[in-house]
């Protein structure tokens, strides 16, 4: 076998690809499902924390800031491993999928809270005061006047951060979640051929390349003019 044939046989082996493509597609669906769950719960919790922080109760704010700092400082893989191997000892047994979801949700929650909070802070005080002067209570002022402006400011930084954290779903393979990377790795060890890994890489590109390009567009589209 010449070098080129050997390369094709290893990385673009049609027979192996046909055998393992269904597994990779299953992995792709699992990755999408996990990513959607993480994005929904992470952003919702982050927004909730930012709103609570806007209420300005000092003790509560310290707790929020500390929580956010913890989940920004810890590597996601450390969190996944801690939750997966540690929590059963505390009587809470999560599957690999559950552990990955929880860890990434906490990380996204922390980053999203910071970004939403910065957005809320960037809305001029006069907007709050005007809302209150018109007789709106705290929550309606926040919901109808401040948040729409704050979220617009938060969109560009939030988009890129969310994409980066969503890519962390690949870390689930470490705790036996058979998402794309997990499926590709077990395919590789069964077939003794790295073609499933090539398929996995292609699946990630199909999934994330459009998102990365869209993120670039969102960043220019929503950017506030200086």
């Amino acid at each position: 076998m010449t070098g080129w044939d050997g390369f094709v046989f290893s990385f673009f082996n049609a027979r192996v690809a046909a055998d393992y493509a269904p597994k990779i597609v299953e992995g792709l669906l699992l990755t999408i499902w996990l990513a959607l769950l993480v994005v929904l719960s992470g952003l919702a919790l982050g927004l909730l924390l930012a709103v609570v922080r806007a209420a300005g109760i000092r003790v509560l704010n310290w707790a929020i800031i500390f929580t956010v700092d913890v989940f920004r400082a810890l590597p996601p893989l450390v969190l996944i491993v801690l939750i997966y191997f540690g929590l059963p000892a505390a009587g809470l047994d999560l599957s690999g999928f559950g552990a990955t979801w929880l860890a990434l949700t906490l990380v996204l929650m922390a980053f999203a809270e910071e970004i939403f909070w910065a957005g809320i802070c960037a809305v001029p005080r006069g907007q709050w005061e005007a809302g209150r002067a018109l007789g709106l209570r705290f929550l309606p002022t926040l919901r109808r006047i401040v948040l729409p402006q704050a979220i617009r400011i938060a969109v560009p930084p939030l988009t890129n951060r969310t994409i980066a954290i969503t890519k962390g779903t690949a870390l689930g393979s470490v705790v036996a979640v058979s998402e794309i990377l997990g499926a590709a790795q077990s395919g590789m060890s069964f077939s003794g051929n790295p073609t499933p890994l090539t398929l996995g890489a292609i699946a990630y590109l199909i999934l994330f390349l459009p998102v990365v390009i869209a993120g670039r567009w969102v960043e220019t589209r929503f950017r506030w003019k200086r």
Partner: protein
Amino acid sequence: MNNFIEAFLNVEIAVAASPILWMGLVQTVLLALMTVPLGMIAGLILAVLSAQESRWVRWPLIGFVDFFRAIPPLVLLIFLYAGLPFAGLDLGAWGAVALGFLLNTGAYYAEILRAGIESVPKGQSEAARALGLRRWQVWIFIVLPQAVRNVLPDLVSNTLEVVKLTSIASVVAVPELLFQARQAQSVTYNATPILMAALAYFILLWPCVRLLSRLENRQIAGRR
């Protein structure tokens, strides 16, 4: 409650595990010290090149950067570590980690620095050229200092992410902090070493997170 303390705050195991965790921490710091400068240099080269006028230079570079931003770093690492040996190229764990991190962090730094360079008005470099500065002088004295200042929070933030990223080297058995903690955990069947590793990461990175939080708030508030 006793079970909890037994499982997470086991003093005996903490004492026994601390020497290898310390060794792991040293490796983590070394990995970070290797990856951050290499990634920054690669990113700087990519960013300066992609600021060229010619689209034949710019578009392939943007494609390269987007490619490595779209591939999760762990996938890249596994490919280099477990896939490439089939092509007769065995990089070893450290080699795969070095190359994978270089490509990943280089792409991210490039994207940030490119945004920074774009934020410097064209008039700045035109004025500098008109004053007789050479091209390299324009870059070093006029454009890059302003570009870096404009994206400083993003640079610090990415550096923090790079240090956190080193934890995935544990997957290919580089004996850094998380790897050592998992070894200790699997020997003792106790989660204390992992909690200690988490604590070490937190102590190492908390000052950076605090600094960043200030920088970012100032930046986003300054947009108005």
